[in-house]
């Protein structure tokens, strides 16, 4: 069997007459590049936190995360993962909204909500990763990473 599509009636031809940078192509490339990087970052995140740390999910508490995020290596790992995951996920959601939401007003609201959520979460996550204190002075010492005792 041979499938031939002679003249697909498609609203967005591959060769657009529009001038200027091709943002949809940039997004297409971004999804592939960020996807490959995210596989490394997220598989590393899951393996380290859930498989290679004794106790796995039960070991995750403030002491564990505070200890990790006191290390610039994990700070940058997590921030890069945050930015790429939010942008990759938001762009994917944009594609789905464009596919299924045909009423212009509802589409605008949905796309706006996705954009607002992306900006807020990227700002919140980045700020927290670089400003939080793993050894808050008023906290119960038994809940803190072990290195806080030496301060």
């Amino acid at each position, binding site marked *: *069997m*041979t*499938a*031939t*599509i*002679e*003249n697909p009636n498609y609203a967005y031809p591959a060769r657009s007459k529009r001038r200027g940078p091709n943002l949809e192509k940039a997004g297409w490339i971004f999804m*592939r590049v960020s*996807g*490959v990087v*995210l*596989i490394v970052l*997220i*598989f590393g995140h*899951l393996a380290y936190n*859930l*498989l290679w740390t004794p*106790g*796995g*999910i*039960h070991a*995750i*508490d*403030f*002491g564990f*995360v*505070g200890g990790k*995020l006191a290390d610039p290596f994990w700070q940058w790992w997590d921030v890069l993962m*945050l930015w790429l*995951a*939010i942008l990759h*996920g*938001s762009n*994917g*959601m944009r594609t*789905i909204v464009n596919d299924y939401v045909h009423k212009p007003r509802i589409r605008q609201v949905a796309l706006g909500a996705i954009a607002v*959520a992306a900006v807020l*979460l990227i700002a*919140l*996550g980045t700020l*927290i990763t670089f*400003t*939080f204190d793993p050894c*808050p002075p008023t*906290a*119960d010492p038994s*809940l*803190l990473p072990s290195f806080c005792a030496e301060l």
Partner: protein
Amino acid sequence: MSETSSSLTLPDPTPRKTSFSGTLYRGNEGMWSWVLHRITGVAIYFFLLVHVLDTALIRVSPEAYNGVMAAYKNPIMGLGETVLVGAVVLHAMNGLRIILVDVWPWATRNQRLLFWIVMGLVAALMLYFTPTHLINVFSPVEGGH
């Protein structure tokens, strides 16, 4: 991608009759991989929103963060985490298949075979993840908290 003519012709090595006959695309591996990619993508997106917010509680207090993490240690949530990791692994492996299909004509012709290779890789990775995670989930917590 690099095709310049307006009609693209690909031989289909193993035609298959389905109840959706008369369409190019419906009902076979290509459709199901697309459906699964969308469903897993949306599920992971909504978990990601929650996960950034729960992690943000490390900036509030150790008690606040440990309180929300206690929810993730519930056995029912533990089963949900296994499904979530399955969704991530499937989305990741199928994403690699999509990239191959985009850039490599051989992969485009053999996308059906690649779908089953993706399924095999997902099964293998989940066979690695699931026992360790479920043993952790259902182990009694030492120190009693």
